[in-house]
């Protein structure tokens, strides 16, 4: 009898961590075979750029979910961040970046403090955050009637520039990913995030600063949602007010498809990125196929999502109980 991990267990773990990548690979191959217009640089960079906004938010969400929580406010913070960035751009590049980060960061911080200090369920606290952030956004824009335009060229360039044909948002995503991955995997803070997600009481008894870790996690999520919103505003050159409704569900889907368990304590960032790309590719393929009515497209997306999680689940099922 071996006391080490069996190969099957290991394959299971591997698949859970990288299953999204495998599915992504399969879809890309299928897409390439089926459509000539799929594997073109233009199409791929479009997918990458479009997915990067979701990916940045999903990175923050990964921290939250690994810590055993959830953040429903990110969709609202995304649109609020965009509006604030566009509004701030009239005072210069710095303001355009600082304002959304400050406000969305504050939102995340307050949510984190409430969750950590009162023990209220993250779902409900961030649901309130979702409403409050959207309410704030509406009141800033005259009930959504005013769209602030990005006045600052430098700031707009951050969203629109594309050195080597690849948009800056993609670079930002990669940078955020790199930093986040180091924090999550290689620092004490990251270990603490896993620990409180795995067993909060035990973590507290092991000396993990539970409250502080939670607060930081929601702060990070708020900051990244704000950053993503600001980047998007730069890309669109305006603070569009009708964005982000239901975005939190897409983000959660990306994270979960990426192999992070909603129960907390397990998961990682590469999967999240693959999950975000997967959603983008699915959408792209549905469009490539064309001919589907809008209603049918939704049926297909839903079925796709279900299929991905089922396949994922079966392949990652562990050998041992």
């Amino acid at each position, binding site marked *: 009898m071996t006391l080490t991990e069996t190969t099957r267990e290991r394959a299971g773990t591997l698949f859970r961590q990288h299953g999204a990548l495998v599915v992504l690979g399969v879809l890309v191959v299928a897409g390439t075979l089926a459509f000539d*217009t799929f594997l*073109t640089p*233009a*199409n791929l960079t*479009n*997918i990458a*750029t*479009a997915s990067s*906004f979701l990916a940045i938010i999903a990175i923050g969400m990964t921290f939250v979910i690994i810590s055993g929580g959830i953040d429903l406010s990110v969709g609202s913070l995304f649109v609020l961040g965009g509006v604030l960035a566009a509004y701030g751009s009239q005072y210069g590049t710095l303001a355009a970046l600082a304002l959304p980060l400050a406000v969305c960061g504050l939102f995340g911080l307050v949510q984190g403090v409430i969750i950590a200090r009162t023990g209220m369920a993250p779902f409900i606290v961030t649901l309130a955050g979702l409403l409050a952030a959207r309410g704030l956004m*509406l009141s800033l*824009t005259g*009930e*959504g*009637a005013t*769209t602030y*335009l990005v006045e600052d060229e430098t700031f*707009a360039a951050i*969203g*629109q520039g594309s050195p080597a044909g690849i948009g800056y948002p993609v670079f930002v995503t990669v940078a955020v990913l790199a930093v986040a991955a180091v924090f999550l995997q290689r620092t004490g803070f990251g270990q603490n995030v896993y620990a409180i997600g795995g067993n909060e009481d035990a973590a507290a008894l092991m000396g993990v600063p539970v409250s502080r870790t939670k607060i930081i996690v929601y702060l990070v999520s708020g900051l990244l949602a704000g950053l993503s919103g600001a980047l*998007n505003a730069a*890309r*669109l*050159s*305006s603070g*569009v*007010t*009708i*964005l982000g*409704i*239901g975005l939190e569900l897409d983000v959660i889907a990306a994270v979960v498809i990426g192999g992070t368990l909603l129960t907390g304590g397990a998961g990682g960032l590469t999967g999240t990125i693959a999950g975000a790309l997967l959603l*983008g590719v699915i*959408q*792209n393929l549905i*469009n*490539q196929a*064309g001919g589907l*009515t*809008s*209603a049918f*497209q*939704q049926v297909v997306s839903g079925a796709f999502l279900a299929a991905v999680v089922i396949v994922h689940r079966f392949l990652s099922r562990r050998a041992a109980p």
Partner: protein
Amino acid sequence: AKAEAPTATANPADAQAQQQVVKSPSAPAGGGCTIAQHGSPKFDLKSAVVGFSQSEKEANPFRIAETKSIKDEAAKLGIANLKVTNAQSQFSKQISDVQQLIAQGAQLLVIAPLNSDGWEPVLQQAAAKKVPIITIDRKINARHCADYVTFIGSDFTEQGRRAADQMIEALGGKGKVAILLGAPGNNVTTERTNGFKEQIAAKAPDIEITFEQTGEFTREKGQQVTEQLIQSNPDIDGIYAENDEMALGAVTALKGAGKKPGDVKIVSIDGTRGAVQGIVDGWIYAVIESNPRFGQLAFATAQKFLDGEPIPEKVIIEDREYDSANAKDSLGQAY
């Protein structure tokens, strides 16, 4: 499955009357945008790849009629390669939809935008490839000719003003009015509200707008808000609904509260068959049309552009009005 028998059937004779009519081709002094100025290569519309990006699900009469008219017209003209996408009301998705259309080699883009602002990434890519863009029903805030060729659609502010005119007439210039607003953040909502309020302020200072709440363009919300409204403001005289669905919801609410047709004057915008029927039944006072059948006009404009004619910045279409005088006869023309 077996559905309830349909209540009304379309009359093909109305087809002609349904088509959009241009109100202001307003060729500006500058002469409009020509293909030479724009820089797009000339191509044959029939064999070209044409992309159409719809903003919302084809689940309300307006969007259904709009998409259908584009598809029908393309079929009629023999345009074989029409690619249609639907953004399902998600603006980010619409941006990537159009970008994907461009990547797939679209030579002409017809866009029904979900929002007027925020088109920068699309405009850049289209400009790089010199793909002409025609926007329908909502405009894009961008530079004429450099960014897009033309906007074909209604003037929403004007629709609001005309609704106000109807309301003034209905109330004899005096009374309390409630507004059922559209979805917040939507350009259409903003413009239809502004036009209405401007006109009321200018023409009938005795009409007081005492209540404005969003019904989010849906029948259910229209009904719920109206139910609350008639509870707390039983003295309301008129309701301005920014689309027909909300107006019909309001009608259900009024019926439920035991009101009689005409007790509260309802004016709305769109011109769907249900609303026009509402006029016939006496529940709705008037409906300002917003005509969704863009197909013919859009492709005709595109052809003109390809032929080298100058195209104006806006092609504003003529919207009809339905009221008790013409509702019954025009029922077949409503969509």
